[in-house]
């Protein structure tokens, strides 16, 4: 929303300078995007008169002019326009001045210099409308009206010595009334503590229509009443289409609207003043285009029929449907209601009679149509913020008044006014006390009343209560809290008492998910791993090369690009490319991890929303590894470190190749195909499956060009935190000495390390024994590939006595026997 300070001052008797106004708007109304004094764009541009002219001898197009801008001295300027006449008034851009258009369109503004054009000296430039930034014509030098005073600054003559302030539309989303200068003026007045009185033409509009004027018949039928609560129109005859006077053009230019002709310019001017979009139809075109023409112009507000088309004023054809409201004659649409007029009834140079429309349309309908058709006109912007139904008539009549002021036209019909529902005033009751509680203020009743009255609310007092009638233009005010905001805003939020709330002294509830992630982050980052964050969006192609199923992913309806069109089902999908990129950066060895949510399509909660599990995924790689052993174990020790810190015991790892694939949870079966079954394991604790760890399949690794020494894990953190982690309690140590013994077993290759370890551990921790077991070595010779040797070191003690040699022997033989029976392994 762009406001001109001079237009504001038409409604407001203030001396305040523009910087103060900007500050007040920021503090009390909403964010200001920028403000700019247009005069700065027109320095050293003055009105000059053509004194002599001759054609350039070496050019068909250039003319050589002697001009005078009031100094009595002729200056020679060469212009690309030969049609200027002696005596014409023009805008002369002096040497050293900047061409206004170039300020906004070129990286470096264009500064006028003295130059020779085909051998003839030229000192300055005669501005075209485009170069002066006030129109589209750049072929012709703009000739000013003959009464333009020579020597006057152009900005002053064209009333551009004014500041424009752009208020952010977002802050005005619910304030249709602030899309007109009148509304902003009213707010500013209240902010400065002054009563605002809306002009009479707005509050009690009237026009005299004589019997003889009522000669053009109009019939209007509203078949879309719920979306068009009001439609008013009037016909004007004897229209003479011409250029608008300077004041009118200037007002439009300042608000970023290009002048077109006197009629269209007036409709736009009304929109600037009070936000009400108006539309002018060419009466004769409307009538003659209607196949069922009688002697009455017929206008119908209705929903479009599927497949109907309209050629808009922007020369584009729009295909319509049943959701789009149109203005139509008896047969076809002549405008898209509230958004854009139709080309077939456009006002042009030959127009003699017009119908002026001033209507109110439903904000949601306008918004939907505007988005659907991609038409973002000022009219659509205004309507979609909800306008006052009561301003249709004042807008219409003010337009008639102004049109008559600048042309000889006359009213040629009655005012047609179709209103769906009689306007009812809104009344709200509020308590001063409650208001002060919500705002944290101590504003007196008198002050509250003043603020509200200055904004033209009607206020009656009833003890602590105020009964308030809301002005018709405040469609955003429904409840008392809306009034509190108005009062707080005008009073100034900076005047509020700043005080912390009083609260019971109570610790916050534990969020185990959040606190577990904190521990994970701490542990992994302290062990050389780097936390990353990656996008939730992935390329569907990544699924293919990662051997995962893209059909399990949620897809976006409106992605930014194909590469960002699919929601990942596993964090590893987005970590893999990052591993590749870091290798390409020349980093040889690293471990990356991310904690985030991944989604699996159709894996939903009771209320049909996707299950949102948090995952921890880690991927490590080492390009320079000597390749001894599977990288599975390097990833596994990260898990062990983590489980130890989280106090989770009895973790089981079972090889994917040996695991039943059926009955695995979604979050595992989804990611499983990425892992190599022979070198990866499913992680579970107490029967709860937590995740997968291991090497990636050869082809996945190869697709990302990752080194052989690469492995990963993905853990479901939500499942992890469900596992009860017991408090670690102190375990009494025996006071007697410990004995250490190494035991080397030879066993079949397929016997698991962990099974034997648990047998040993059980034996050395019962019957008063206390013991620990650890692995010293796992060996396999090239000759005997189906056998392996594992050396366990046991450290053992007794709570009641010092262990004797024979006790040790007894323990060892117990272990030996048990292992021989269960696993046919021998001590060697």
């Amino acid at each position: 929303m762009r406001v001109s300070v001079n237009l504001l001052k038409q409604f407001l008797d203030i001396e305040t300078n523009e910087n103060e106004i900007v500050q007040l708007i920021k503090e009390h109304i909403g964010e200001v995007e920028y403000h700019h004094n247009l005069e700065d764009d027109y320095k050293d541009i003055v009105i000059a008169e053509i004194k002599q002219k001759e054609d350039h001898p070496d050019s068909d197009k250039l003319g050589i002019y002697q001009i005078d801008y009031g100094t009595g001295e002729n200056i020679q300027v060469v212009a690309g326009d030969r049609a200027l006449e002696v005596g014409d008034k023009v805008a002369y851009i002096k040497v050293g001045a900047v061409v206004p258009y170039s300020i906004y369109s070129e990286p470096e503004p264009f500064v006028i210099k003295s130059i020779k054009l085909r051998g003839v000296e030229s000192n300055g430039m005669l501005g075209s409308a485009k170069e002066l930034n006030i129109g589209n014509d750049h072929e012709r030098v703009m000739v000013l009206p003959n009464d333009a005073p020579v020597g006057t600054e152009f900005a002053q003559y064209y009333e551009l010595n004014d500041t424009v302030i752009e208020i952010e539309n977002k802050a005005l989303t619910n304030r249709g009334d602030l899309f007109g200068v009148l509304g902003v003026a009213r707010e500013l007045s209240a902010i400065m503590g002054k009563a605002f009185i809306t002009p009479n033409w707005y509050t009690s509009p009237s026009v005299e229509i004589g019997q003889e004027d009522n000669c053009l018949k109009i019939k209007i039928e509203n078949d879309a009443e719920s979306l068009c609560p009001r439609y008013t129109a009037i016909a004007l005859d004897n229209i003479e289409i011409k250029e608008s006077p300077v004041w009118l053009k200037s007002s439009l230019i300042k608000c970023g609207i290009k002048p077109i002709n006197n009629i269209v310019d007036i409709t736009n001017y009304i929109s600037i003043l009070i936000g009400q979009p108006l539309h002018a139809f060419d009466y004769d075109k409307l009538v003659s285009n209607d196949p069922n023409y009688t002697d009455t112009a017929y206008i119908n507000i209705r929903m479009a029929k599927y497949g109907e088309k309209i050629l808009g004023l922007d020369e584009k054809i729009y295909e319509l449907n049943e959701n789009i409201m149109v203005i139509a004659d008896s047969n076809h649409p002549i405008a898209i209601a509230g958004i854009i007029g139709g080309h077939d009834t456009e006002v042009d140079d030959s127009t003699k009679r017009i119908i002026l429309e001033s209507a109110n349309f439903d904000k949601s309908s306008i918004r939907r149509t505007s988005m659907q058709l991609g038409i973002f006109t000022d009219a659509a912007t205004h309507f979609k913020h909800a306008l006052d139904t009561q301003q249709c008539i004042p807008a219409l009549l003010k337009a008639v008044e102004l049109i008559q002021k600048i042309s000889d036209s006359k009213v040629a019909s009655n005012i047609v006014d179709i209103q769906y529902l009689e306007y009812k005033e809104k009344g709200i009751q509020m308590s001063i006390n409650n208001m002060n509680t919500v705002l944290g203020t101590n504003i007196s009743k008198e002050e509250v009343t003043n603020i509200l009255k200055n904004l033209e609310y009607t206020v009656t007092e009833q003890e602590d209560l105020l009964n308030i009638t809301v002005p018709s233009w405040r469609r955003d005010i429904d409840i008392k809290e809306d009034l509190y905001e108005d009062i707080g805003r005008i009073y100034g939020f900076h005047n509020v008492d700043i005080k912390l709330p009083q609260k019971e002294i109570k610790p916050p509830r534990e969020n185990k998910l959040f606190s577990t992630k904190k521990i994970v982050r701490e542990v992994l980052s302290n062990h050389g791993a780097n936390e990353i964050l990656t996008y939730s969006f992935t390329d569907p192609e990544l699924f293919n090369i990662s051997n995962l199923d893209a059909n399990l992913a949620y897809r976006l309806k409106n992605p930014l690009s194909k590469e960002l069109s699919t929601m990942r089902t596993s964090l590893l999908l987005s970590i893999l490319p990052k591993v590749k990129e870091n290798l390409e950066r020349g980093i040889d060895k690293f471990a990356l991890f991310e904690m985030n949510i991944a989604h699996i399509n159709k894996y939903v909660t009771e209320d049909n929303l996707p299950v949102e599990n948090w995952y921890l995924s880690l991927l490590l790689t080492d390009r320079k590894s000597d390749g001894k052993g599977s990288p599975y174990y390097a990833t596994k020790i990260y898990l062990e470190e983590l489980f130890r810190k989280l106090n989770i015991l009895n973790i089981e790892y079972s090889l994917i190749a040996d695991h039943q694939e059926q009955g695995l949870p979604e979050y595992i079966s989804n990611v499983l195909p990425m892992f190599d079954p022979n070198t990866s394991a499913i992680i579970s604790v107490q029967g709860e499956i937590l995740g997968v760890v291991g090497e990636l399949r050869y082809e996945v690794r190869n697709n990302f060009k990752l080194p052989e020494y690469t492995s990963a894990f993905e853990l479901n953190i939500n499942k992890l935190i469900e596992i009860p982690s017991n408090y670690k309690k102190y375990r009494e140590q025996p006071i007697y000495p410990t004995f250490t013994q190494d035991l080397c077993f030879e066993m079949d290759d397929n016997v698991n390390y962990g099974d034997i370890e648990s047998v040993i551990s059980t034996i050395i921790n019962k019957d008063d024994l206390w013991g620990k077991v650890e692995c010293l070595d796992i060996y396999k010779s090239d000759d005997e590939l189906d056998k392996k040797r594992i050396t366990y070191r046991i450290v053992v003690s007794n709570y009641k006595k010092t262990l004797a040699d024979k006790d040790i022997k007894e323990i060892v033989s117990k272990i030996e026997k048990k292992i021989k029976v269960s696993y046919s392994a021998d001590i060697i």
Partner: protein
Amino acid sequence: MEYSIKEIEELVKTIEEDKKELDYESFRKKHTGNNGILTQYLKKIIDIPNDQKAVYGKEINSVKEDVLNILEEKKKLENTYYSSKKIDPTAPFDINSNKDELQKFFTLEGSKHPLTKEVEILVDIFSSMGFDVLESRQIDDDYHMFQSLNFPKGHPARDMYDTFWTEDGLILPAHTSTMQNRALKSFGPPPIAVVLPGRCFRNEATDAGHEHTFHQIEGVYVDKNISLGNMIATIKTYLEKYLNAELEVRIQPAYFPFTEPDCEFVISCPFCNKAGCSTCGHSGWIEIMGCGMIHPNVLKEADIDPDIYTGFAWGFGVDRLTMIKLGINDIRYLRSGNLNFLRQF
């Protein structure tokens, strides 16, 4: 020559066995390498009497063809499927290796992500002020993202949020306010004090200052007699703690359908103390977040009586705060996964 033919038969037998047992490389070495068996057989043809050369040649060439086919097959198989050997997943380290070798990653330069680190710091501050924490969803529905927040269908304020939609009609939240209704319900009845951090998405082009993916922290506070002044004090208090500076604050009007009154929270720039610097765009002030008193309709939607309780809410972007605090000039670094960036933190 009978002897040679018999020999060939034996060779075929060996090949059949090796085909099952050996991988590509060993098979190639054994048979077609410089001293390979087949290579020897092929060389032998010189010694075969002329009258038998044709028969021998035919036989041995057919064997050669078979061998080449086997090699081709093996190569193909190994290229598409890496024939790994089963490991013992319960062992602490692999056969013939040791544990110390595995810990080589532990000594690398590890790091926490700067953004999650800031979230932790902020949540710690909120926690010390008595706020509960609940993290935000990343896919949600229209009800939570819009309707429960007083954005009826067709409301123009929906345009303020460039939301992503899934093909199934779900929404990727454009703000953490998507959690307000849930938080009010699950932490109610009042007093309620909760912060809601989470990842948000907006469908907009990415550049140094804009991301389609970003992080927000929402705050919700509901109790009896809660005022706008309480809100300003709360926000000011935690920002001063977080930025370790005394701040001047300004409250500017704004518009959000789910608050009434609606405000923009503006702080004096903690880096230049209002003198103007690059962080505050030389204005001396930084617009840091949207906030306001929770709209009565939002409270009602969560079964809280707005005639008894009032409350406030805020939402701010963590990315921008992190960037301001750490002097990061391009938001895209945060999700680049670039180790040269990450290892600085």
